[in-house]
């Protein structure tokens, strides 16, 4: 088995550095397996989140060779002999590979609940609705899309009024659910900062569930927002008609 070096960022909010750990890679070993071996050996206090080890829970998010990834789904064999493992850059470090992702839970609380009304609860949910929504509901909340989104990553000043791709997916899921009566387009536009996204598709590229975040969630939301807020004819017509969402 080949010998490998993992350069793991160790430190806390006050600073840190990469520490090299050498180990023999076993067949099929993932980066998370390797980190567990390091914990059992020379660095028992190496901090890393993990739960299911199966790519289903989205706990072990980090950056491997600069790319956002789930540690339990990244095999050492897919990496060069020497690789770096660093915490998510978009969120404050707690310790080593563990970051403070509470930003995402605050944004989740702002979105609010699924909001049916008596009138909408009886609305049919056709197979095509389910087919469209299923993808959005597959999100494992690993926050890799949030990490790679340049608005969150590079613009601290926008964070109070920008929710990020994970929540555009959630808002799209609610907007396209025939039984939800909340005004999700207004929220996306006015509270979640939808306009700040400039559709570079980085979020879609890193999604471990393959959710087409930009094409299927963000762009449809942007189209609906544009129709409502930026199309003068639609605005005029809107004065005389009530759409389902406004009823």
């Amino acid at each position: 088995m080949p010998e490998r070096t993992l350069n793991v960022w160790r430190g806390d909010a006050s600073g840190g550095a990469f520490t090299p750990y050498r180990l023999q890679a076993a067949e099929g070993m993932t980066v998370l397996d390797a980190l567990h071996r390091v914990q059992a050996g020379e660095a028992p206090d190496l901090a890393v989140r993990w739960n299911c080890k199966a790519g289903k829970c989205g706990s072990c998010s980090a950056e491997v060779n600069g790319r956002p990834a789930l540690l339990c789904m990244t095999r050492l064999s897919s990496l060069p002999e020497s690789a770096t493992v660093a915490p998510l850059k978009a969120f404050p470090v707690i310790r080593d590979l563990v970051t403070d992702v509470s930003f995402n839970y605050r944004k989740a609380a702002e979105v609010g609940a699924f909001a049916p009304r008596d009138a909408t609860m009886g609305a049919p949910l056709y197979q095509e609705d389910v087919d469209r929504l299923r993808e959005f509901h597959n999100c494992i909340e690993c926050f890799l899309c949030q990490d790679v989104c340049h608005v969150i990553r590079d613009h601290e000043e926008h964070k109070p009024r920008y929710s990020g791709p994970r929540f555009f997916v959630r808002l799209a899921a609610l907007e396209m659910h025939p039984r939800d009566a909340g005004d999700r387009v207004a929220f996306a536009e006015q509270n979640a900062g939808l306009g700040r996204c400039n559709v570079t598709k980085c979020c879609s590229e890193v999604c471990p569930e393959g959710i087409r975040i930009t094409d299927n969630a963000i762009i449809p939301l942007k189209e609906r927002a544009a129709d409502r807020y930026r199309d003068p004819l639609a605005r005029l017509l809107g004065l005389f008609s009530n759409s389902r969402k406004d009823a």
Partner: protein
Amino acid sequence: MAAHWLERECDVLVIGAGAAGLRAAIAAAGQGARVAVACKSLLGKAATVLERAVPAADEELEGWGALPLATRGEKVGLETLRTLQHRAVSLGIEVHMECAIQRLFASRGRVAGALGVRRADGALVRFRAGAVVLAAGGAARLWQRDIAAADATGDAFALALDAGAELADMDLETGGVRVDPATGATTVPGLHSAGDAAAGKHALLEVLLLARRAGEHAAAYARSHPRALLSVERIERAVTELLRPFGMENGESPYALLLDLQDCMQNREGLAGLKQRAKRLAAAGPRAWNPAWLLALELRSLLVAAEATMSAAVQREASLETRRA
């Protein structure tokens, strides 16, 4: 160093945030109780995401925004967990993420709160609570080395015994905290249990139904009984115990002890030696997000679960022998 901890207060403390814990929390909040949920991981990461047995339908979950469960295949656990998570958050239920409850207190035979470790900074947090719902899952980690839910370390069993509650059928897959299925009540007043933590093997929709009852009854208990009082000395003693691994010189590695315990579950021998070694578990480094310390604390629960499992098996064999004789 004087023992120091943070204080939190609620009517109902729910320990665990999988399907059972969240459903219980929603039910208790629906009764007007002030609910706090404490879970070891981030919200939405519970072992429920691995659930694959697909129920036909659940009107309640669909009313809260879930897609029809029958359309969700192997994602049915995720669909259930996420729906309950959104519901709980929208109700304003207080969630203490990454707060690992380590001790459950009873006073004069009634439940009197809990003590946990906040992973982020290693702070100790004492919860005063009128009632508690134990929904901390099972002890799968005793058996599983590879694909495993990290959090399933048998905490519910150790916590139940702390408070004086009974366990049942621990040698069987259905084993857990003994409860009255009509109310989720354990043998200790004010303490309820649901989900994998509770005795009785249930499919997903039954788990939700029983957890709802546990949450409602916990809220009713908290409303109709004065809070049990607890002496400061007992909290101080627990705090000292929890911090012991930091002072241990030339102690045992928690990682090595876990591997040996998993072997022991296969061979069925050597548990007494492991319990001795567990007294000398060591953790170096800071208290903030220290996985060696957290595992050392979890090993108490794992050892309790191991011992309960093995002694239940021995008793069952003896009882079968007696009947055969």
